[in-house]
């Protein structure tokens, strides 16, 4: 039996960390993720867990500390947002290339400037190619569930990659909502004990990590990483199946909402998916066959799943909560469109940018997107350019 609770997204993540009881938590505070290490350090101070907390002087150092401790053989975590994630940029690549399964909750916040503390995905989208597995949550429940699964996905022997689990700053991190948490023992059993096969502090098996890699070897090592990411696909499925058996909550790479007969669909990530579901219910009530595809796992990118989910759709809107400055929308727009092209789907697609820097995304905002899609179907004219939603002109 799950425990019914009401928690903010940050509290939910902190409780997940408490239940996972990692060996090391190294963190530097940054809004809106600060509460996570704050709660965890309280749990430690109260003797509820025996995690070693490392206060550091920057996020470059928090990730470096995680890399050091994970390499030494300890299950390590940190949490960050926005500029903090950006300051880790160099170390993100080191963690992934050293094949260290660090887990990191990211509380999404606009990456300056102008300076802003509210949600969008420009921070984690900037790190999407760093070699980390990326998962995104719609609400506190998913933020909690994703983190617990992330530990096992990253540590899977065929994967060995770090995982970031993202949720929207303030919108879910600071909103108190209903949630079902698992019993401590269940989480403990689920994640198990971390036993690295090779690690630096092994008593007898000495090893060195992070040697200089010449051109003669570098591509092979990068390809090994790609194989790990490929293997993550099965690990994500297997871990989700185990998690469903334990919790009753099912997860997949993507979530489809009212897609079976949808004429118009949007592809979306994060908290606005919930708002969009309400908008879709309204539209359905009015006779519009609307649906949505929510991407839960962005790395590895679920290209086939997205293409299949959209196969019967007339027009699709792809919703980016970050600019790409490609002059044609954000990263999701590009990748989802590529998925459709690669699978030979001739579906009209419109790219949107919305919700930057915490711009509130209302039910009406989503309806505006669908109005756009319906117009495209009516006129047959697909806008050559991407569209901004909620922009004053």
């Amino acid at each position, binding site marked *: 039996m799950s425990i019914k609770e*009401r928690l903010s997204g940050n509290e939910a993540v902190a409780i997940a960390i408490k239940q996972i009881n990692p060996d090391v938590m190294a963190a530097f505070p940054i809004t*809106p993720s600060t509460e996570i290490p704050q709660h965890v350090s309280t749990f430690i101070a109260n003797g509820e867990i025996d995690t070693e907390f490392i206060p550091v002087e920057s996020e470059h150092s928090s990730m470096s500390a995680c890399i050091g401790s994970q390499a030494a053989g300890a299950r390590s975590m940190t949490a960050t947002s926005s500029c903090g994630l950006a300051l880790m940029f160099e170390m993100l690549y080191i963690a992934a290339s050293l094949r260290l399964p660090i887990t990191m909750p990211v509380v999404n916040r606009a990456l300056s400037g102008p300076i802003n503390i509210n949600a969008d995905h420009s921070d984690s989208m900037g790190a999407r190619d760093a070699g980390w597995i990326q998962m995104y949550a719609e609400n506190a429940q998913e933020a909690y569930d994703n983190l617990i699964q992330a530990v096992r996905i990253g540590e899977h022997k065929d994967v060995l990659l770090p995982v970031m689990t993202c949720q929207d700053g*303030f919108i879910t991190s*600071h*909103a*108190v*909502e209903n949630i079902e948490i698992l019993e401590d023992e269940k989480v403990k059993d689920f994640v198990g004990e971390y036993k690295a096969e090779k690690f630096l502090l092994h008593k007898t098996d000495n090893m060195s990590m992070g040697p200089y890699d010449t051109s003669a070897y570098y591509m092979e090592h990068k390809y090994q990483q790609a194989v790990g990411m490929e293997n993550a696909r099965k690990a994500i499925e297997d871990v989700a199946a185990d998690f469903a058996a334990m919790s009753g909550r099912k997860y997949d790479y993507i979530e489809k909402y009212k897609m079976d007969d949808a004429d118009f669909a949007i592809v979306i990530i994060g908290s*606005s998916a*919930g*708002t969009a579901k309400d908008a879709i219910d309204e539209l359905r009530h009015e006779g519009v066959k609307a649906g949505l595809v929510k991407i839960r796992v962005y790395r590895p990118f679920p290209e086939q799943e997205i293409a299949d989910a959209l196969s019967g759709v007339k027009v699709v809107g792809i919703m980016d909560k970050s600019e790409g400055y490609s002059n044609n929308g954000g990263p999701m727009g590009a990748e989802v469109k590529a998925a459709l092209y690669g699978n030979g789907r001739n579906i009209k697609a419109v790219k949107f940018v919305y919700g930057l820097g915490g711009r509130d995304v209302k039910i009406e905002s989503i309806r505006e997107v669908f109005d756009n899609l319906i117009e495209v179907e009516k006129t047959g004219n697909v806008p050559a350019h991407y569209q901004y939603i909620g922009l004053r002109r």
Partner: protein
Amino acid sequence: MNERIEIRWHGRGGQGAKTASLLLADVAFSQGLYVQGFPEYGPERMGAPITAYTRLSSAPIRVHSNIYEPDYVVVMDETLVGPVDVTAGLSKDGAIVINSSKDPSELAALISDYAGRVYTVDAASISMQTIGRNIPNTPLLAAVVKVSGAMDETIFIENMRHSFEHKFADKPEVIEGNLKALKMAMEEVHLYER
């Protein structure tokens, strides 16, 4: 109750609008409702106008936007009535509850466009009398429960007692005062008769 009740809180930084929005969500949760409580975040400072929100529902809540058409509005500081459009989007079938010691007619004149019910409660005075400090949160919570009928009043008081017993475990002497504040606010929240 209705399928969903949406409440918007207006306060000034430091007055506890966020805490109130979360407290109401908390007590509604104890009654088995689905809840959402959240403030609007920005560069907050003591005294700056801030907004917080509470959603209560009999069904799971998926929407993640601010509340634009609230059923109820609570104003924690009467000086916000006027400078802030506190009745924006407020349902005329709902009500506004203002923490004030002023004559309700003075405040009603400032929001004369609003056709719904206007309530006042002197939460500052009630909290001074019962708790001994100006903590308008607690009486305002009771006032909005009374006005909205969002939950059973007796069960509300009982749940709050449990919550206080937990919160004030190390100073049980303040529990009775807090409970008294709730009951007084329920009695002393006045409807302005136009």
